[in-house]
């Protein structure tokens, strides 16, 4: 269920995002998912890529500040109420979700959800026990 997310700290200025995507394109890094949390001063980019370690090295070589963060990946059925079911469950068990983002899985039947919880291990157990399908790697 564990996924290694690439976290990048950028100034909230024009051009930073395109600089990163261009770097990835040149290095042949495939992006599966992308989410941005921002304030007026800075942004935190969260990326799921096919080879996070290589991607991190590429970014560092170009002066970017990044790190690898462990998150969990869950497959959610593409029907109304499924995500709600997972989140309700986590709340009931006292697991706090720091952030999450979702993306399409490539099939119509399901979506993938990336979750960062205060306690990733517990979140994983809770979801697994309830029958949610884990996503282990994305490459």
């Amino acid at each position, binding site marked *: 269920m564990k996924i290694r997310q690439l976290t990048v700290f950028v100034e909230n200025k024009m051009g930073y995002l395109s600089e990163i995507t261009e770097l990835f394109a040149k290095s042949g890094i495939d992006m599966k998912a992308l989410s941005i949390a921002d304030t007026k001063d800075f942004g*935190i980019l969260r990326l799921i890529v096919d080879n996070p370690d290589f991607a991190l090295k590429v970014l560092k070589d170009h002066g970017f500040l990044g790190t690898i963060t462990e998150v969990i990946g869950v497959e959610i059925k593409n029907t109304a109420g499924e995500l709600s079911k997972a989140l309700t469950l986590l709340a009931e068990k006292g697991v706090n979700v720091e952030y999450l983002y979702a993306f399409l899985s490539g099939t119509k039947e399901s979506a993938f959800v990336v979750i960062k919880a205060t306690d990733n291990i517990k979140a994983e157990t809770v979801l697994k026990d309830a029958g949610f399908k884990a996503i282990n790697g994305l490459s």
Partner: protein
Amino acid sequence: MERYFQKDIETMPVEKIKELQSEKLVKQVKHVYENVPYYRNLMDKKGVRPEDIHGIEDLHKLPFISKSDLRETYPYGMLAVPLSDCVRIQSTSGTTGKRVIAYYTQHDIELWEDCCARAIVAAGGTKEDVLQVAYGYGLFTGGAGLHGGSHKVGCLTLPMSSGNTERQIQFMLDLKSTILCCTPSYAAYIGETLKEQGYKPEDNSLKAGIFGAEPWTEEMRRDIEKALGIKAYDIYGLTETSGPGVAFECKEQKGMHINEDHFIAEIIDPDTGEVLPEGEKGELVFTSLDKEAFPLLRYRTRDICVLSREKCSCGRTFIRMAKPMGRSDDMLIIRGVNVFPSQIETVLLNEGYAPNYRIEVDRVNNTDTLDVFVELLPEQLSDTTEGIVKMEKALSAAITTMLGIRPAVHLVPPKTIVRSEGKAVRVIDKRKLHD
């Protein structure tokens, strides 16, 4: 009719002032030479002996004292009387070994308060006035100086200290304060707050304000005068020479009269130390003529300014100094507080940050703003915005503890702080303080 606190002295003919200064200087040099081994050593090195000083024409022969000498002699090295003769200390805001402790005998306190009393009277103060002191009390000389001066004039003194603006306004209106003493930026802030609360300038009883301890422009003066419905007077001083009151403005508002019976002012070339003629721009240097406990001779203030002996319509004969137009070192005065970039650097290192930072100072609505940009290290990276904001707040709190004023801290990615010749450009002062 112009009023004076000590008319005979304040309107003394220039030749008489110079005679008085010469007489006092000879005695003071002897006092310092005999009682301050550090300065005696400086004089010996320069080959000057007290008997070489016959009057103010010999002043240039004496060695300078700079801030670094004060650091070196901290805490007692410049003391010229037994500690048991001292009754008070005051101190500068510096905290990283830059702190200066000034000692006062009762005589020193009296002369300092006399200087402040002259400033209050020059601003129209009499015993009928209600004088609100909104400078900080404590180690800072602002509160203590104006407080003492106010007593000497016989004003009803409101020892408010700085801050708690609601209470300042309540006392100001309820007790009908007529003179306000504080930093110009605080005066501007009080003015804005009054306006926000729906008061017009004519709703308060203020007639004058005596503002100092930080640089301010003529434009800011006009703003404050309009907002509070007063005449705003500038006052100058530094802890090393006593505190506020070394120089003060009269109704002409054309430079500050230096209390020449107690201090000799010189303007020097900051690079060569050479004394410059009247009217030329250079570094201001003060010699204390009467102070017993902490008598600094030729103290370099680092303030760049111009002196003028031009006759003043107020009748005072004391030489006038223009508003200082800059400083010859890296010290910043922000909201009346002395700030050295090195202090911020110290906090960064203590808190585990790299010393790559940029300080931006600006003045928004007449209040100084301080922004500190700091480069984040890879191991410090958080994956949430709250995580970063929390770090910014913690760092801001640590800097506040060090400086006494709160900065806005901005964490930025590495290498985003512009470096010139490999070294980061540390300070950007955007304030327009000098017209």
